[in-house]
């Protein structure tokens, strides 16, 4: 088992817990407790911007370190792919002229397949990479991505991803949380402005309606993010249910928590309506074992070496 030097000193879960605590404390301090000093003095935000930056980034860094420390190679290999999916899917959506972002699909996929910690690490690292390569301005938002990956994993563990309806609801909730978490960064670091003119106009409307910049930023996020994340969850679910069972089998998290409701694929239908649990004896002799109960492409008649040659 590989561990990084830090991990040898501190157990990974402690790093993740500490990171989450730092982020939560920063948030509570900035938003809920709202110290007096934050009140605009000569139009500035005081130390709020620095606190938001340092607190969020330090928290994200701790979570990344903790989540990656004991990550198996199969999951590590998934991360760059997932982050590339985030980036390219976002660009594709933009190119098609669809008024959404859809730039967290990869993060959501990892959360569902490999669990909350891996999802959080994917979100944060993806944001860091985007930040240190093309768009430094996006770096402070890494905590939002952490929240998305974390929640995708938690909802998967709680079984919300087994049905499309609950999956979409999980996406709505995740989007709402993302909006709330982004608030302080959007308001204190970016002054409520957004590279998108449309989003910024919504902030302007909320401000004229009497909300402060933080409130307006959160409200603006709530108008867009839930829908965006609900659609992203939907796409992620469709894709994952499409992949051969063997794929999700490789991820212990997805296997142990039977994250995806076993769905009979047409490839394997034999006309018996038996539920997977009842069909288990048919699969006896293999070590597939667990309740996922899905059988793979190799079962198709004709002795196709679907797994070995299937790439």
């Amino acid at each position, binding site marked *: 088992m590989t561990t990084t030097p830090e991990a040898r000193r501190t157990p990974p879960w402690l790093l993740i817990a500490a990171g989450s605590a730092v982020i939560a404390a920063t948030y509570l301090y900035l938003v809920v407790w709202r110290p007096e000093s934050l009140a605009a003095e000569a139009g500035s935000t005081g130390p709020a911007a620095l606190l938001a930056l340092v607190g969020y980034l330090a928290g994200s860094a701790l979570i990344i370190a903790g989540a990656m420390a004991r990550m198996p190679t199969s999951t590590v290999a998934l991360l760059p792919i997932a982050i590339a999916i985030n980036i390219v899917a976002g660009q594709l959506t933009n190119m098609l002229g669809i008024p959404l972002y859809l730039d967290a699909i990869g993060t959501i996929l990892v959360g569902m397949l490999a669990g909350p910690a891996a999802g959080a690490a994917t979100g944060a690292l993806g944001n860091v990479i985007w930040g240190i390569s093309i768009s430094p301005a996006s770096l402070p938002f890494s905590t939002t991505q952490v929240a998305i990956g974390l929640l995708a994993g938690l909802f998967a563990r709680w079984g919300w991803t087994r049905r499309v309806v609950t999956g979409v609801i999980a996406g709505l909730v995740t989007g709402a949380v993302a909006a709330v978490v982004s608030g302080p960064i959007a308001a204190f670091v970016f002054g409520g402005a957004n590279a998108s003119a449309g989003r910024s106009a919504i902030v302007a409307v909320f401000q004229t309606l009497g909300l402060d910049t933080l409130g307006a930023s959160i409200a603006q996020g709530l108008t867009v993010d839930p829908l965006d994340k609900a659609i992203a969850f939907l796409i992620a679910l469709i894709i994952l249910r*499409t*992949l*051969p069972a063997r794929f999700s089998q490789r991820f212990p998290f997805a296997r142990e928590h039977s994250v995806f409701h076993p769905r009979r*694929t*047409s*490839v394997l239908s034999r006309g018996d309506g038996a539920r997977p649990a009842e069909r288990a004896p048919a699969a006896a002799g293999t070590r597939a074992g667990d309740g996922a109960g899905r059988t*793979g*492409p190799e079962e*198709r008649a004709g002795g*196709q*070496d*679907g797994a070995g*040659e*299937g*790439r």
Partner: protein
Amino acid sequence: MTPAVHIEGLVYAYPGGVTALNGVDLRIEHGERVAVIGRNGAGKTTMARQLNGIAKPTAGTVTVCGTDTAGATTARLAASVGYVFQNPSDQIFAKTVRADVEFGPRNLGRSAEETARLAEAAMAATDVLDFADHHPYHLSPAERKRVALASVLAMDTPVVVLDEPTTGQDHRSVRRIERIVADLHAAGTTVIAITHDMDFCAESFDRVVAMAQGRVIADGTPAEVFARPEELELARVEPPQISRLAAELGWADQVTTVDGFVEELSRRAGGAAGAPGA
């Protein structure tokens, strides 16, 4: 009658400025079987992509079945040119093979019955009917390649372009693709294939177009083209096995196929043996 494909003075430069095609003239009549050969980077795929308007000429004209591609979208040209991409994973998305095969004809505005009929025929031709209701991602790569082919055949276009159809395929699949090319030809479809497989090229095509550095450097029957060592060298192409065998035996007449070879052999042996294939 207008030709299936008419390319005149075609020049194409990538947005970055690199010139990929440097004056291509090519006329392909309806019903021809044409193989386009040449090393990677010679401009084969770039030229083929002009046929359905994925890329537009920087200079010159490309006319497909009478339509100038410069003013037509890829979606419109799709009614004339079916293009099978090299990597089937780039296009398969639907939940079943059948739904995926029906995507093309439906986009072209065919009626539901017509779409179903065309899909059925295409799946039969490519031998994928057995798993018509399976998920495409549960198939082997070779089977997926056939699904991609079926999904283009179902569009029932007068011109079909195949990009590297035999790459990574086993012997049986190659044989099947050879048969599909023959069937398309028999039905009057124009077939254009980009290929590195010279044996496939020799066995299945009537005409070979060799490209190098963005130009057509040889154009003729397989026997003619494979008899031109300098051009082949330029295109970095090794002739088919049978051509090399004939050359090794010092035969002056070019033979490129197994049939042709046996025929020539029996002629040279004095016709003592029976007719080829007997």
